[in-house]
């Protein structure tokens, strides 16, 4: 089934996302990166290059490498000044040539040919489309594309044209802040006012949105089309250069190689300082003079970085103020603040935004991806994929049954998406056990007694058999409404019993949380208790095995060995009476060692058939997946 994608067609970077299973997911480029530069070029031998490859050759082919085409989309020479710089101004800032079209529209020149901005954007879209198709293994023919909220009709039309040229049917053009709000699920709210603060690599936008009954209205927008994360990097680079010059007396500004390394190190340091308080910038052999090689090692602290960029961050607040005024709102009237753009990861930015709006901004979705995600959700909604997606629940707590020694054995672990079902085979704990009790439990604790009992029932009519022989298949089945059906079936006789529990999810959020917390608090003591039970279970099994072996192989076991085993069995039994776990462990170890003598003497008997099953209570169903856990006798 062909998918509709969401595309964030950005000034410097573009991204594409798709909704799958009701959730948006970013599609990586064919180069394996999520970053897709919005750059197109015609190489000297006439080859068309798009994305990363085009960017790599930009500096040697500046006249035929087109970037920031978004700044020219749908614009005309001499048009009245809007939010952006005048076209003439933007044209001066690029290295490629621009031209006048018949209707005074902007055209760009690449490889000696004139192109309209939509044609250039189409090349980017086409590459995104191809990569998405390769990733999804399916044709991509429909898309939702985002544009800045301040784009006028002609800019929107140009974006739509670009989609059509790229062979995409454009389902809708939506605003970038609206897409961000959609990604945060704002459409599910009845009404409210949202501020979207978008600080990307090269542009800053603030938008105030109003939601009413699932529709979005842009109340106001403001921003700065030439302010972004790159300016932050530049501040760090300049500071590093100044520090180095002060220390070593060498100016790195003219050393291209050194500058390249400084640029990478600066961006890296800036990113690191979003999570740590200080970072070491270490660039050995950054340059050399007559006295030998020079190294750059500087510690940059978060507070120093904040000092370096403080004015840039504050520069974003003036447009915020403007947008609020234009919307006729005060900060108290904003219900939610969303952060978009990688630079909003910086704690200082978040702090300033919080101060300005008097509200903690929402985080949680990758700010680099949130616009493409929202576009994908819109595409999904328009294609009826999102609306029809069933919202599936999860089991809030683990479900299981009680097994030998009061252990809670889980069948369905918490956070499993429902509906689901799971079967496991259990057996009896003693010889000729006529029935088993199925005690259905809910909770995270390892011992049955600490968990909540959901119900219990008895499966009887089990034919007399040695312990571990009967196979009881226990099945847990939860439907989409959280109704749990537990059945137990004796695989030998086919006899079955079942119970339906409707209250399995009848717990309030607080109750679930309380049970989870308790499990965490008691984790270590619970583990100890479970271990103790396990030791006891092992001891019990070993005693059973030893006694059975003595019985079954009576004629082959020398009297002295038999006597020794009897003694050790008595030892384990008496240890089991007590509470000392280590004493039980020790007794079990002794008995196991003695049992090896039994094995030895049985195998030494002449006439022993090779390949006969080893003595002892081997679980007959072992090779059929019988589980160690056994029911206690009822």
């Amino acid at each position, binding site marked *: *089934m062909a998918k509709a994608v969401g595309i964030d067609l950005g000034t*410097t970077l573009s991204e594409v996302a798709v909704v*799958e*299973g009701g959730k948006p997911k970013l599609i990586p480029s064919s*180069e*394996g990166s999520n970053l897709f530069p919005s750059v197109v070029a015609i*190489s*000297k031998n006439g080859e068309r*290059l798009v994305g990363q*490859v*085009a*960017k*790599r*050759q*930009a*500096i*040697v082919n*500046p006249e035929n490498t087109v*970037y*920031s085409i978004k700044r020219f989309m749908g614009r005309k020479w001499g048009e009245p000044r809007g939010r952006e710089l005048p076209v003439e101004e933007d044209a001066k*800032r*690029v*290295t490629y040539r621009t031209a006048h079209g018949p209707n005074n529209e902007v055209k760009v020149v690449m490889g000696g040919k004139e192109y309209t901005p939509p044609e250039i954007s189409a090349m980017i879209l086409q590459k995104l489309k191809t990569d998405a198709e390769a*990733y*999804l*293994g*399916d044709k991509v023919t429909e898309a939702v594309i985002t544009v800045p909220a301040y784009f006028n009709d002609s800019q929107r039309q140009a974006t739509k044209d670009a989609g059509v040229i790229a062979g995409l049917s454009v389902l809708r053009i939506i605003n970038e802040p609206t897409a961000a709000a959609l990604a945060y699920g704002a459409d599910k709210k009845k009404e409210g006012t949202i501020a979207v603060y978008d600080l990307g690599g*090269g542009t800053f936008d603030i938008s105030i949105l109003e939601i009413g009954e699932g529709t979005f209205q842009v109340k106001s927008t403001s921003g700065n089309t030439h302010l972004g994360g*790159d300016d932050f990097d530049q501040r760090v680079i300049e500071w590093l250069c100044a520090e180095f010059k002060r220390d070593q007396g060498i100016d790195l500004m003219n050393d*291209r*190689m050194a500058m*390249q390394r400084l640029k990478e190190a600066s961006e890296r340091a800036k990113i690191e300082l979003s999570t740590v308080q200080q970072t070491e910038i270490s660039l*050995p*052999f950054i340059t*050399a003079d007559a006295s*030998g*090689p020079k190294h750059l090692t500087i510690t940059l602290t978060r507070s120093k970085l904040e000092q370096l960029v403080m004015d840039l961050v504050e520069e974003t607040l003036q447009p915020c103020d403007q947008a609020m005024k234009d919307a006729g709102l005060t900060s108290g009237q904003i219900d939610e603040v969303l952060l978009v753009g990688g630079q909003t990861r910086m704690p200082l930015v978040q702090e300033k935004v919080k101060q300005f709006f008097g509200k903690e901004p929402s985080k949680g979705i990758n700010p680099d991806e949130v616009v493409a995600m929202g576009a994908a959700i819109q595409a999904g909604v328009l294609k009826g*994929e999102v609306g*029809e*997606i*069933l919202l599936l629940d999860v089991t809030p707590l683990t479900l299981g049954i009680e097994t030998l020694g009061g252990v809670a054995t889980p069948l369905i672990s918490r956070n499993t998406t429902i509906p689901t079902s799971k079967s496991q085979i259990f057996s009896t704990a003693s010889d000729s056990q006529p029935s088993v009790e199925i005690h259905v439990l809910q909770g995270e604790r390892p011992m049955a007694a600490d968990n909540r009992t959901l119900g219990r029932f008895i499966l009887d009519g089990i034919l007399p058999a040695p312990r571990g022989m009967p196979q009881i298949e226990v099945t847990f089945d939860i439907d989409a409404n959280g109704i749990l059906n537990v059945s137990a079936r004796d695989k030998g006789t086919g006899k079955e019993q079942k119970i339906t529990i409707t209250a399995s999810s009848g717990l309030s959020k607080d109750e679930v949380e309380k049970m989870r917390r308790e499990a965490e608090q008691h984790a270590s003591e619970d583990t100890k208790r479970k271990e103790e039970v396990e030791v006891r279970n092992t001891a019990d099994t070993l005693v059973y095995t030893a006694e059975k072996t003595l019985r079954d192989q009576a004629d082959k076991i020398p009297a002295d060995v038999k006597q020794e085993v009897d003694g050790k069995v008595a030892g384990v039994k008496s240890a089991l009476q007590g509470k000392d776990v280590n004493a039980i462990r020790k007794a079990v170890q002794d008995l196991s060692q003695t049992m090896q003598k039994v094995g030895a003497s049985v195998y030494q008997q002449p006439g022993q058939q090779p390949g006969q099953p080893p003595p002892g209570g081997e679980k007959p169903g072992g090779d059929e997946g019988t589980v160690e856990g056994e029911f206690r006798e009822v």
Partner: protein
Amino acid sequence: MDEDDEVVGPETEQPEAETEDVEELRQALAEEQEKAQRYLASWQRSQADLENYIKRTEQEKSATVEFANSTLLLELLPIMDDFDRAFASVPAELAEQHWTKGVGLIYNKLKAVLEAQGLAEIKARGEPFDPYLHEAAGQVDGEDGIVVEEIRKGYKFRDKLLRPSMVMVGAGRKNNTEEENSEER
């Protein structure tokens, strides 16, 4: 009670009630059919989503296994660069010392280990500039379109580009260095 009421109702009304009933039932049936169709469609879609997801997860898993080390390698490359730079500027009086040579051997050993994992240097100097392998840092005097100088080595990992070589490209014989560095990048 309701049923009784209907039975004792006037006989003449019965056909009319029946047609109404039939009409109602027809409508209900149509609604249910439409619902069933919708559910089937979502079911198919979910199933298709799941199958595609599984297929892609398989692909991604094998790619992840194959390129699991590339993140680590990428982190190690700057250290390789540092070694390269260090050896490129060994002071003459130290060059012949055994200690210096020893460090060189350590570097070679590191390189050999990484190469055994699938790391390979990209040829740059003297080659025609290729944006699929090289990243241009600038233009200098030299043969047009040919890599004149390698500023930083590039590497491939199992035939996939890991990091492009950073190079200076020849701009023809004449001195014509265009350094219009755009502020966009």
